[in-house]
């Protein structure tokens, strides 16, 4: 489904990604781990099309089509979803209005009829329950005054509403207490499907106890230095990054 070949990217002239290669097939869950500053978040942002990053080499295809030529919103409509690490606030715009606009943009792209306010309200209420969010949240401004955990649950709710082909979760576990982590993980597990891929970016192994990945990759210095199965994450937890020749003052836990 997603094919990344020798991807290079930089921000403000500084190269962050230095030749990433990765193949993700439908139905798979991949985890990308790595120390701080290794380029994990950059990879998520670049895939989603954040224009603050410059692509300096390589190619990315989604189901055979060149992804890098598409503007952000078209990538989204083709099924790329990014759950943000730090979701931004949009004051005065209700979550409900924001989500309906997004859902209808996707529906329009697929040639489907747009949902009216009542239909959408019903759908949104159902989905909000899946991540244990009070439907009252729908009426509040986008991320306005949300706690860290509420923001993360809100992101997963959006993924559930938009039903992407590839969901990229950027540090979705950061700042969550154990109960919230469970809720968010349940939401992500509900996303797992044969025709959908999930790419999780995380610093900590603990998320992978809740969402069990098919593959684990270690990103360091802008490259994938090691790939393996679920056991690689456990090994990282036990041994840190040092044995891979990676320096990191803030490792596994």
């Amino acid at each position, binding site marked *: 489904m997603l094919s990344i070949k020798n991807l290079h990217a930089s921000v403000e002239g500084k190269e962050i990604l230095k030749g990433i290669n990765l193949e993700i097939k439908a139905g798979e869950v991949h985890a990308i781990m790595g120390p701080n500053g290794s380029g994990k978040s950059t990879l998520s942002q670049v895939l989603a099309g954040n224009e603050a990053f410059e692509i300096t080499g390589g190619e990315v295809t989604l189901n055979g089509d060149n992804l890098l030529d598409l503007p952000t*919103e078209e990538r*989204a*409509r083709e099924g790329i979803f*990014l759950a*943000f690490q730090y*979701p931004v606030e*949009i004051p005065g715009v209700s979550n409900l209005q924001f989500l309906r606009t997004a859902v209808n*943009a996707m529906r329009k792209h697929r040639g489907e009829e747009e949902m009216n306010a009542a239909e959408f309200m019903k759908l949104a209420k159902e989905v909000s329950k899946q991540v244990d969010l009070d439907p009252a949240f729908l009426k509040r401004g986008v991320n306005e005054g949300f706690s860290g955990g509420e923001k993360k649950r809100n992101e997963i709710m*959006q993924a559930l509403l938009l039903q992407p082909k590839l969901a990229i979760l950027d540090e979705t576990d950061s700042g969550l207490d154990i109960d919230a982590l469970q809720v968010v993980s349940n939401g992500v597990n509900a996303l797992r499907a044969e025709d959908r891929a999930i790419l999780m970016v995380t610093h900590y192994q603990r998320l992978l106890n809740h969402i069990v990945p098919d593959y684990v990759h270690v990103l360091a210095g802008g490259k994938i230095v090691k790939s393996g199965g679920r056991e690689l994450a456990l090994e990282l937890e036990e041994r840190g990054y040092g044995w891979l020749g990676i320096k990191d003052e803030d490792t596994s836990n």
Partner: protein
Amino acid sequence: MATTDKEVKELIKREYEHGFVTEIESDTFEPGLNEDVIRRLSELKQEPEFMLEWRLKAYRRWLEMDEPEWAHVDFPKVDYNAISYYSAPKKKEDMPQSLDEVDPELLRTYEKLGIPLHERAKLAGVAVDAVFDSVSVATTFKEPLEKAGVIFCPISEAVQKYPELVKKYLGSVVPAGDNYFAALNSAVFSDGSFVYIPKGVRCPMELSTYFRINAANTGQFERTLIIAEEGSYVSYLEGCTAPMRDENQLHAAVVELVILDDAQIKYSTVQNWYPGDENGKGGIYNFVTKRAACIGKNAKVSWTQVETGSAITWKYPSCVLRGENSVGEFYSVALTHNFQQADTGTKMIHLGKNTKSTIISKGISAGRSSNAYRGLVKFGPGADGARNFTQCDSLLIGDRCGAHTFPYIESKNKSAIVEHEATTSKVSDEQMFLCRQRGIDPEQAVSMIVNGFCKEVFKELPMEFAVEAGKLLEVSLEGSVG
């Protein structure tokens, strides 16, 4: 990244929606202004003698005055002798007696504008007075209003039919010599609306006026006077459009509101005069004086305005809070784009005890435009216990526009309380990225973010106007994302 350049260019090319010119026979004065022009105008309108005298007095005052230069706007001097001071659609016979007699071409114009004039007016329950260039063309719903004792008619008609009311109140809030443009308006005003709500009457429907400038080289000087007697209530809506023309056109209106004991006026404006093209050519000069006098106890006035049009806007709807416990409110959204310039705000003059005022101003600047909020909050010596709350927010789109805030506070009473909050923010790249990542078009994202920013003001607008205002912002913002 090569993104939506093509889309954006197409959007920029999209034209001002109301920019058509109506082919209609009209009687238009030769350009130029002198006492004879005023006499002709007054005669044409069959005005009583007192009106002509009033106009001439204003004209003589105007001649002695200088054009104000303190506003944060920049434009070439207006040649007042190059403007025609009267233009009216030529009547087939006499004045139309009903809508059926109104020139169909004119009705089609209003239809294009989306004005609910005909049957739609009845469905919407809105009584409309439509001013086309200089004369009032049709007033709907006269009968049910008359039943309630409400007078809603062109001001030219009121001058003839209700001279006592006009004599008593015209110029009582905005005197002829108040300022340069008010003096000019007093001398040459051609039409406008007159509303009188008798004691204890709640006006059975929202009243509405649509203004349109059609003829070239014509100034529009409408005058609106609304009187709310004791315990009465009225909600009044005003909308404005003009065709696209390369030359600038002058619009200098005066609106006076008189509010007696326990009465309330809610005055809403959606101003969408032609703003000029993307290079700053053409557009309306909108120099307007609007003021409300809360004469009585517990009188209340709310100004709500959405200003998206005009090349230059110079407008400060104000409240004189004379009556004890009277309340003044000002809710404003002013959006400027391309080369538009706006200097707008309000004046809250607290004279009576325990008077209260609220100012919520939202300025949005895009393109190379300049947007200034200018507000005065003044407390007289008798304004014991008076208070004001001001919130003034600016939103910038892009990095070539400007936002300015000029708050003035004058207090002659120690017990008065003033609160002032101000913020400036930008539509951030992060907000845009979030919206686009969810599949939303950049243009739609900006409009959604701006609508959110304006929410506090939009909720003050009557329902159908709020919808219109939201759409208008969307259209006005087109091409603001590059």
